[in-house]
């Protein structure tokens, strides 16, 4: 399955969003995720089933004005 993570197309063999974060090396309580433009809550990542072509955003706090 191929998904797009933060704009980069990657091939993955995991089923859930939580597993994707692990295999891609994303960790930390400060991360927020969205799939196809909709928020995927932290508590729901384990049940969130990925599909081919999903667009995933992994965001974290950054400086801002």
């Amino acid at each position, binding site marked *: 399955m191929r998904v797009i993570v933060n704009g980069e197309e990657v091939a993955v063999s995991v089923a859930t969003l939580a597993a994707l974060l692990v295999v891609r090396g*994303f960790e930390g309580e400060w991360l*927020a995720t*969205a799939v196809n433009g909709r928020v995927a809550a932290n508590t729901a990542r384990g049940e969130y089933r990925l599909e081919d072509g999903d667009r995933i955003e992994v*965001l*974290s*706090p*950054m*400086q*801002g*004005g």
Partner: protein
Amino acid sequence: MFALPGANLGSRLLMGTARYPSPAVLAAAVRAGRCEVVTLSLRRETVGGRHGGAFFELIRSLDVHVLPNTAGCHTAREAVTTAEMAREIFGTSWIKLEVIGYHDTLQPDVFGLVEAARILCADGFDVFPYTTDDLVVGEKLVEAGCRILMPWCAPIGSARGPRDTHGLRALRAAYPDLTLIVDAGIGRPSHAATVMELGYDGVLVDTAIAEAGDPVGMAEAFATAVEAGRRGWQTGLVEPRDMAVPSTPVIGKAVFS
């Protein structure tokens, strides 16, 4: 005391966290500015989450209220999703709502802004909308549920200061009970004092402090200016006059000829 939803603050200076020469200078400036609310953003994390994590810990250590923004969003949908993600991370209902309409001026897209504000207010957010001083837009934002407005006084990062004090004054007069915070365009402490003298409840400053020669000293200067402007507003400013008015009493003046 300065009341924001769920918080009573001693300081009316809100500070951005971008463009500082280092995290240590940012932290020192926030303390020197006696600032209790900082803005920040959300951006794509790198693998490992190290960038966001370090910044997250720095902000936590400052013991301040966090006002996440939706900077860089150009549609209401983007801004709403970003706001929801910010709430997920920070556990706050506050969101500084930005929907940018024009790339060069970073002028707000007020149509998208109102659309996003309506969605977020209905979802329980306390929306701090980055807007203009347009009264019609203000009215639409209030109808959407906003109790706070954050008009610019000049384009973001321009440091030009208040371009239209009449417009800012009119907004203040139209909404005496709303919380009004000037968001963008402040360049000098005197600019902050000017808008506070107009009766604004607070100012948000980033570039003018972060890019100053001495950001820590400048934060202190802004804090003083904000307090001075507020005190001036509270104590009854004398309106400008067209002609000179002698301050020294004329009665009792000696006659030498």
